[in-house]
């Protein structure tokens, strides 16, 4: 059982800017009261408008970007009342953030290849991951498979491409890149030896993609991590509302669940039933 991260805190942060991304998403830029160190990719925040607008419970979001030491950006797709209230925040308004939460992706040595797989806004934790790899001199040993229904839902695609790693886009409607599902593109790339099977794989995205990826990774014996999202009450490990089932044969097998918020949201595929 993991504990509450030592750096987690509750902050009321000013919205410094908000910009559109794709047909249904926004980048929310929040100002921090002081400079923060770089955070592990894959950590998250619980966000809600500070004035009580929107639903009662805050929503979890991956930390998308730290473009300056005193800024945190979030990629927010409008899906329901909670995300709508956050996306409606204007510059100068205040967002309550409990942050940084969760564990983040396990650090890989620069010489080990890493393959990232995302669908839609599942890309959110991977900008920091790509930047971290580039900073370690491992950009060319890192691949990003970025899939979506259509090209306009490959949110902030140019920004991912600008980091320097190969970004392989796929769209289900064929409007950009590989025409089809992102896992079909990945399967072809593995079969042709374009990406190495001994890489560390990490996936984030809609639940359907994660389930398909989990089955795919198990079938091929890939070493993989998943960035999970469940209903969360608190985000800080106290409410027990976000259980992820554990594999009884795996390292967490002494209890049927772990807490997604503090034991994750990034979990090794071999430890969970998913």
């Amino acid at each position, binding site marked *: 059982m993991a504990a509450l991260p030592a750096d987690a805190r509750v902050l009321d942060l000013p919205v410094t800017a908000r910009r559109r991304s794709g047909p249904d998403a926004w980048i929310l830029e929040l100002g921090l009261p002081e400079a923060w160190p770089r955070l592990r990719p894959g950590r998250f925040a619980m966000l*809600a408008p500070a004035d009580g607008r929107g639903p009662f*419970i805050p929503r979890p979001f991956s930390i998308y970007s730290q473009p300056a030491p005193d800024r945190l950006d979030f990629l927010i797709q409008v899906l329901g009342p909670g995300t709508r209230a956050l996306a409606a925040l204007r510059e100068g308004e205040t967002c*309550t953030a409990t942050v940084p939460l969760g564990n983040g992706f396990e650090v890989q040595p620069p010489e080990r290849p890493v393959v990232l797989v995302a669908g839609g806004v599942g890309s959110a934790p991977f900008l920091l991951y790509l930047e971290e790899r580039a900073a370690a001199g491992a950009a060319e040993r890192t691949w990003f498979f970025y899939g979506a229904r259509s090209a306009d839902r490959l949110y902030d695609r140019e920004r991912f491409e600008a980091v320097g790693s190969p970004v392989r886009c796929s769209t289900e409607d064929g409007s950009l890149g590989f025409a089809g599902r992102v896992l079909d593109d990945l399967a072809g790339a593995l079969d042709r030896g374009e990406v190495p099977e001994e890489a560390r794989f990490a996936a984030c995205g809609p639940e359907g993609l994660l389930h398909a990826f989990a089955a795919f990774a198990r079938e091929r014996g890939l070493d993989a991590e998943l960035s999970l999202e469940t209903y969360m009450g*608190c985000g800080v*490990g106290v409410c027990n509302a976000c259980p992820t089932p554990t594999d009884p044969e795996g390292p967490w097998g002494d209890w049927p669940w772990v807490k997604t918020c503090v034991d994750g949201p990034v979990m090794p595929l071999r430890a969970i039933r998913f």
Partner: protein
Amino acid sequence: MSSGLLTSAVGSLELRSPLLTGSGTFGHDPAAALRFLGPEDLGAHVLKTVTPRPRTGNPPPRLVETPAGLLNSIGLENRGLAWFLEEVAPQHREAPWPVVGNAGGESVEEFVEVVAAFGAEPALAAIEINLSCPNVQGGALPFSTSPEAVGEVVAACRAATDKPLWAKLSPNVTRIAPLARAAEEAGADALTVCNTLLGLVVDWRRRRPALGQGMGGLSGPAIRPVALRLVWECRQAVGLPIVASGGVSSAEDVLQFLVAGASAVQVGSYCFRRPDGIRRIAGDLRRLLAEEGCRVRELVGSLRWPGGGAAGGGEG
């Protein structure tokens, strides 16, 4: 200057603040409370329910949002009494606030087993008995709906400990006064009023309940007027101190409960909105009390009912 504004007491348990955590909303261990709350803000840390043996809890989804609140069915997930005593309780021994254990069980004997062990645990200043979780035994509400059952459990627990004993009552009853009186007569030191309201959300496309277990307990601001009414009814029925619980998310809410008769107020779901919520409410409470020129102790039970009589039934 502001010291003393917030002090209160639940029977013999002195509190620096009337604000407590609601059981199940701030964990078993002290980590989150120590991180987000200060001893001048939090009157006591009420812990998540412990049962004699491990309970793995209910299948997900365990939480679904509702208008002004949430429906949960966690199912009292906990690793059992032995785990709590060995691994958790020692972490609370240096806590900067009183710690209240919460005991659960499916039989009188199970309640007594936990209460007796809590009574011997130096980290715990008081014991709340959870007579009212709606999420075990399929929502069958075994203890909390019958005065005889409440009396039996409370009397057995009373005999097992000298520590302050709080009976946490259910709102899922037609009349709460007989239950409050049963707890008082059986030797409870205080009442906690109330637990969650049994509710249901349906995922109509799947033709299934939205929660994995089926029904759940409703909490949050949506239930606050119901909880306030129950606190007032208990205030009329018994002389015991009352710990209120139900939808508190601001200092104004706390003041309503104090005036209606509560000596202390638990904050639950709002801790999910912001884990430092109790600290924030405490700050607002100090400001409001200073403006009003009164202290928490002076407000408790100060409600003046129209016509000067006792609570009138509003139904009908």
